[in-house]
C-alpha cells in the first residue's frame, strides 16, 4: 500500500510540475526564450489568490479567476517592458533579463507582502477520500491537479494545432521573418504566448499552494527550477513532453525520498536531468533539430 500511496503522491506532485513546465515550454517553443521569471509569476498568482480569499473574503472560484487575470496582465506587462525591447538582442541578454525580472518580482513581493510565510488555505475544503479501509487516502486537490494538468495539456495541444492564433504561434516559432511576411503580427503573437503562459502560472500557483499550503516570496523558485528541468527532460518546446517530464519528475522525486533518502531526493532529480541530456539531448519527446550553418 505504501507503494501506491507514494505513486499517488508522485503523480500529484508531478502534475503541479507539469502545469508549470507547460508554461515554460509554451514560451520557449514559440518565443525561443527561457522565461526564468515563470516561477515567480506562480508566486504572484498564489499571493493574489491568498489575498482574494483571506483578506477580501471572496469565494475560491472568484479568487482563482482573479489570480489568472492578474497574472495574465502581469505576464503581458513584463513582456512589454522587459522582453520586447530585446527582440533582436542575443539570447544571452534576454536570459539575463529574465533572471533580473525574477529577482525583481521576488523582492517586490518581499516589500509588499513581507517575509513572513503565509498559510495558504486550500481552494477545495473537502475531506480526503478513503479507500481500502482508510489504508489509502487521496486528497481531492490531488485529483483536481491531475485533471487540470490533463485538461491544460489537451487544451494547449488543440489550441496550437487547430486555431488560427495557435497556427500563427507555430509559424512564429519556425521562422519569425517568414511569419511576418505572411501577415502575422509577431509581437502580438508573442504577447499572447506570454499571456497564456502567465495564466497557466496562476493556475499552477493556486494548485501548488493548495497542495503544499505555504506561501512566501521564494515559493515559486524551487518548483520553477524543477519544472524547467521537467520541461527539458520531456523535450523543451513539446507540449506533451512537458506534461510527461513533469509527471515523471514528480514520481522520481517522491520515490527517491521514500526509498533512497530525503536528503538525496533533489540531487537525484537533477542527476536524472543530466542522464537524459547525455542520452537524448533533445529530451524524451523533443524533436532533434539540426542547426543550419
Amino acid at each position, binding site marked *: *500500500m*505504501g507503494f501506491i*500511496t*507514494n505513486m499517488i*503522491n508522485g503523480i500529484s*506532485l508531478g502534475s503541479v510540475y507539469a502545469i508549470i513546465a507547460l508554461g515554460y515550454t509554451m514560451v520557449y517553443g514559440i518565443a525561443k526564450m527561457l522565461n526564468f521569471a515563470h516561477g515567480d509569476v506562480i508566486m504572484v498568482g498564489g499571493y493574489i489568490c*491568498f489575498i482574494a480569499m*483571506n483578506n477580501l473574503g471572496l469565494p475560491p472560484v472568484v479568487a482563482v479567476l482573479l489570480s489568472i487575470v492578474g497574472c495574465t496582465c502581469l505576464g503581458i506587462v513584463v513582456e512589454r517592458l522587459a522582453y520586447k525591447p530585446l527582440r533582436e538582442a542575443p539570447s544571452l541578454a534576454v536570459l539575463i533579463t529574465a533572471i533580473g525580472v525574477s529577482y525583481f518580482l521576488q*523582492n517586490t513581493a*518581499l*516589500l509588499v507582502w*513581507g*517575509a*513572513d*510565510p*503565509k*498559510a*495558504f*488555505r486550500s481552494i477545495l475544503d473537502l*475531506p*480526503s477520500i*478513503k479507500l481500502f479501509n*482508510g489504508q489509502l*487516502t487521496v*486528497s481531492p486537490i490531488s485529483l483536481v491537479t491531475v485533471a487540470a494538468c490533463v485538461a491544460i495539456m489537451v487544451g494547449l495541444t488543440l489550441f496550437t494545432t487547430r486555431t488560427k492564433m495557435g497556427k500563427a504561434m507555430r509559424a512564429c516559432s519556425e521562422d519569425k521573418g517568414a511569419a511576418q511576411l505572411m501577415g502575422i503580427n509577431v509581437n502580438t503573437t508573442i504577447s499572447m504566448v506570454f499571456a497564456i503562459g502567465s495564466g497557466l502560472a496562476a493556475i499552477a500557483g493556486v494548485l501548488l499552494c493548495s497542495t*503544499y*499550503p*505555504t*506561501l*512566501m*516570496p*521564494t*515559493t515559486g*523558485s*524551487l518548483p520553477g527550477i524543477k519544472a524547467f528541468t521537467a520541461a527539458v527532460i520531456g523535450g523543451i518546446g513539446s507540449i506533451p513532453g512537458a506534461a510527461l517530464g513533469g509527471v515523471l519528475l514528480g514520481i522520481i*522525486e*517522491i520515490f527517491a*525520498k*521514500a526509498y533512497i533518502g*530525503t*536528503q538525496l531526493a*533533489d540531487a537525484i532529480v537533477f542527476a536524472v536531468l543530466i542522464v537524459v541530456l547525455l542520452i537524448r539531448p533533445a529530451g524524451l519527446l523533443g524533436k532533434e533539430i539540426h542547426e543550419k550553418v
Partner: protein
Amino acid sequence: MNTLNLSRRSFVQLSGAVAASAVLAGCGGGSSDGGSASNDGTTFKIGGIGPVTGAAAIYGNATKYGAQVAIDEVNAAGTIKMDLNWQDDEHDPEKSVNAYNTLKDWGMQILVGTTTTTPCVAVSTETNADRIFELTPSASSVNVIGGEEIGADNPRKDNVFQMCFTDPNQGTASAQYIADKKLGTKIAIIYNNADAYSTGIYQKFIDESKALNLDIVSTQTFTDDQTDFSVQVGDAKSKGADLLFLPIYYTPASLILAEAKKQDYAPKFFGVDGMDGILTLEGFDTALAEGVMLLTPFVATAEDDATKAFVEAYKKAAGTSENPNQFAADAYDCVKAIAQAIEAAGITPDMTASDICDALIAQFTDSSFTYSGLTGESSWSTTGEVTKTPKGMVIENGIYMPLDEE
C-alpha cells in the same frame, strides 16, 4: 528565540525592506533620567537590547515590555532602584554592537539582552571583553555562552547567562516529558537536518530516548525549502506511530499538520519552542493545530497569581490586548533574577560594572542560588546554561492551555 535562526536568511533579504515603525524606533533612549551619565550611587543602570523594529520586532517588543514590567515592580518594592534603557538592534549584529556601545556611554552596569541569537553572539563577545554582566532572555544558542563543545575558537564567556533553554537541552527535556507522562508508545520524528537548531534537539532527544527506552519507530528528515512532506508523514503513519515529535519551526510544522490531515493521520503532535508562533501564522487554520503539544517555560493562560498579574501589567505597559509570549516572561524573569542576585550578594549601585559583574557571576553560579519566577524555578550552571522544568502546553480551541492541569 529559536524562531530567529529560521528567519535569519529572510532577514538578510529583508534588510531595509521592512517599514520601520518609527514610533517604537524612537523609544530606545526613553528613560527619563538617561542624562545623568555619572552614577549617583542610588540607581542601577540596566541596559536592554532587542529588535523593536523590523521583522523580528515581535520578539524585541515582548522582551522590552516584559523587562519594563519587572523594573517597575522592583522600583515599587523599593529595596533597590533600577533604570532601564532599551536600545533597538533590528536583529542585526552590527547594529546590536552599536546599541551596546550607546548603552556603555550611558553608563550601563548590567545588560539584559540581547533578545535574538545572532546579534547576541556578537554582543556577548563585547561584554565578555568589557566585563559587563549579561543575562539574555531568549538567545538560545550555545554560541552565546560559549558552550564547551564549541572549542578553542569560541571561548567560554563566563559573564554571559541564559534565561531560556539552550537549544539541545530541549531535546532532553522533551524526551523526559514524553516518558514521564506516557504520551506515546511508538514515536516518530521529523526534523530538519539542514538546521543546527533542529538537529541539536534531535540528537539529544535520541540520546535521552535510548536511556528512557522510548520506542522510536520512524525518523525522517527534510531540508530547507522543502514543502512536500507526504513521504515523511506517510512513513510515520505506516509505522503506526502514535506520537509525532517535531523539533522544528512552525512553518514546516504547519505543512506537516496539513499533510497529516490530508492523509487522515491523527497522532499526538509534540513540538518544541520553535512551534510557538504557529497560531499567529497568517491564514493558518488553527483547527489543524488542535491538540498539538509543546514544551515551553511559560503559559500566559496559567492560573497562578504571578502569571495573571504579569499578563495584566504587560498588556498595560505594551498597550496591547494580546497575551505576552514566553519572550516577555523570560525578560521579566531576567530583571527579577538580577534584582534577587543583587540583593543576595549585597551589590550596591556605586560599584563599577566589572565589580558588579564579578559579584553577579559568583552569585549566579553559586549552587544555592535559585530563582523562582514566571518561567519556573531556575538555577544556573557554571557554563551559563539554565536548568528549569519546562511546562507542557496543549493547543485547545486556538489558544495555549497548560497540559499538566488537565
